[in-house]
């Protein structure tokens, strides 16, 4: 029982950055924009999150600025893929390459010479009174850090937003059939800019939570493929926020198991444990995908001089 509780708690904690990033990606994908550069955006978020947390002494400020960093990057990304109509995938790849270089450079310049970790004030666990006393799930669900509660709240919130608001309807229309949306008088470009900015905020914040919440430090290449896993999570979660939550938890489980086995002194070489989340992702993409459909206009630039 205690093992289960521990696993669930760790699962949620490890899944949180992926969940938040995936929710951000969801926003963008619903409007028809594929962001392969998620990894790079998260990386920027991890760095600036730590930077501003150290500066201000508060992890929340750090998190906020991580999100804003994401938004700034998102603005550039939006300009290139929406206004210039460049290939979304290639742009995303370029973003990842730039992010690596930029964060390494900034790290050396600001935090010092080696690739040693720079640490920062991290998030504290905030148990919710009463609820956290419930056996098993109490510890895992209600004994977590603040941002994790926010992330969980985001899930139904985003679902409601997409289905029950006019803006959500516009986003969905733009992602499925931009020409129809255009002739209905909707400004497709504006909608995409908006969803990219909102989504990028979340992706940046996801990075910020990774450095401030999980590891409490910045080290180069710390995102370690989580951005790509977030992409897999949306596919696996069938492009709706509840599915994304479920999928993120599955991947988080991989991480949780790996950590537990390492600390428990398992005889399996640690490298194979570390491989677990990646293998899991490959299996997920091979086994379960196929029925779900991405928004029909995903990845295609919108041209309104063609009918």
């Amino acid at each position, binding site marked *: 029982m205690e093992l289960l509780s521990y696993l669930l708690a760790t699962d949620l904690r490890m899944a949180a950055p992926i969940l938040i990033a995936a929710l951000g990606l969801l926003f963008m994908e619903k409007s028809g924009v594929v962001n392969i550069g998620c990894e790079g955006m998260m990386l920027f978020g991890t760095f600036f999150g730590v930077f501003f947390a150290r500066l201000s002494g508060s992890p929340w400020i750090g998190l906020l600025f991580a999100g804003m960093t994401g938004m700034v990057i998102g603005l550039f990304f939006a300009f*290139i893929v929406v206004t210039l109509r460049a290939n979304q995938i290639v742009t995303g790849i370029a973003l990842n390459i*730039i992010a690596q270089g*930029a964060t*390494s450079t900034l790290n*050396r310049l600001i935090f010092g010479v080696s690739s040693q970790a720079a640490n920062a004030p991290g998030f504290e666990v905030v148990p919710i009174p009463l609820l956290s006393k419930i056996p098993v799930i109490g510890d895992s669900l209600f004994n977590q850090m603040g941002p994790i509660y926010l992330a969980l709240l985001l899930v139904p919130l985003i679902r409601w937003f997409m289905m029950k608001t006019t803006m959500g309807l516009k986003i969905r229309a733009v992602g499925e059939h931009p020409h129809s949306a255009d002739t209905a008088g909707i400004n497709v470009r504006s909608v995409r800019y908006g969803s990219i900015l909102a989504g990028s905020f979340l992706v940046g914040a996801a990075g910020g939570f990774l450095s401030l919440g999980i590891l409490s430090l910045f080290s180069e290449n710390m995102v370690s*493929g989580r951005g790509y896993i977030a992409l897999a999570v949306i596919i696996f979660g069938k492009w709706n926020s509840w599915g994304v939550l479920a999928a993120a938890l599955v991947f988080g489980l991989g991480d949780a198991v790996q950590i537990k086995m390492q600390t428990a002194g398992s005889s399996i070489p640690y490298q194979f444990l570390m*491989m677990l989340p*990646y293998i899991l*992702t490959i299996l997920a993409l091979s086994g379960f995908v196929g029925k779900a459909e991405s928004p029909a206009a995903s990845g295609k630039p919108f041209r309104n001089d063609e009918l």
Partner: protein
Amino acid sequence: MNRRLNTILVQCVSITVAFALGAVVIKMIGISPLFAYGALLNGSFGSINAIGETLVKMTPLILTGLSYAFAARAGLINIGAEGQLYVGGILATLVGSNFAGLPMIIHVPFAVAAAFAGGAVWGGLVGLLKVKFGANEIITTVMLNYIAIYLVSFLVTGPMKAPPGTMPESRPIVDSAQLVRILPGTRLHIGIFIALLALLFYYFFIFKMRQGYEMRVVGNNMESARAAGMRPQRTMVLAMLLAGGMGGLAGGVEILGIQGRLLQSFSPGYGFDGIAVALVGVNNPVGIVLGALLFGFLRAGGNRMQLIAQVPVSVIYVVQGLVITFVIIGQNLHVFQKVGVNRPFRRKTGDGPAPEVL
């Protein structure tokens, strides 16, 4: 022809702008850009040793560039050159550090072929998953990168570790398997010829062979390919096998020519740089060579720039990133000409619109 000239011009401008912005960044650090770029040039072309280093760095970059390009021709996005490189390195080491009695004329090709095979398997796996299960190759290749890196780590700290076991590395490559140095005073080895041969193969395969033609058709319009009787699935797997093989070769030449044994993180990101090389070179053989030269020059000179001018090597990555960004922007600037100038209605199907008779 006009289009081609236009593309080249755009690339040149983009690269210049990227370097200019890089100069700004260097200035912000408080160092004279001229001094820094001077050191950069010095470290990459300023001496025989420097030129040798540039070519040494260029070798794997050509190969990883080809890795991305082969897949791209078939419409696939291969981000996995880094992993394919590592697996190629593993296989190269297995062959290269054993079979001590073999004559060089057999041992070297054997080891090189093993490297190719290793990478090919790593890439082919992605191809199979894509055609059988629809698994998105962008994600699977990245996942396999991490798996490959951990695999190498496991091997050199475990089964392949060289006695007495103090260092996490394999037994050294036997003399008969090493890639011979060709320029005295430098580390330049015959791997460069392997890379150039691979480049020639790419050109010949893509433009002269029927399988290359099939790959181009599949990559441009899969539906028409099917209707014409082709088998896109087979073609895509073949593309990933070749792409992976190229990546594997990159790992092979690095281990057999430079490192001399397998160790963790022996690649400073050649796989990812290869993507940039292919993008900047628009998957074209000449473009890939030039792109590899550019990025090789940056890497070779970067160390010197850090040493002499105190500019962190990571600035090179920033410049690299800027080059790619501006190349992409440049490739899409034609959009501005068309925005605002109305064109007649066109039907949007297949892989591009065509004007109706008016």
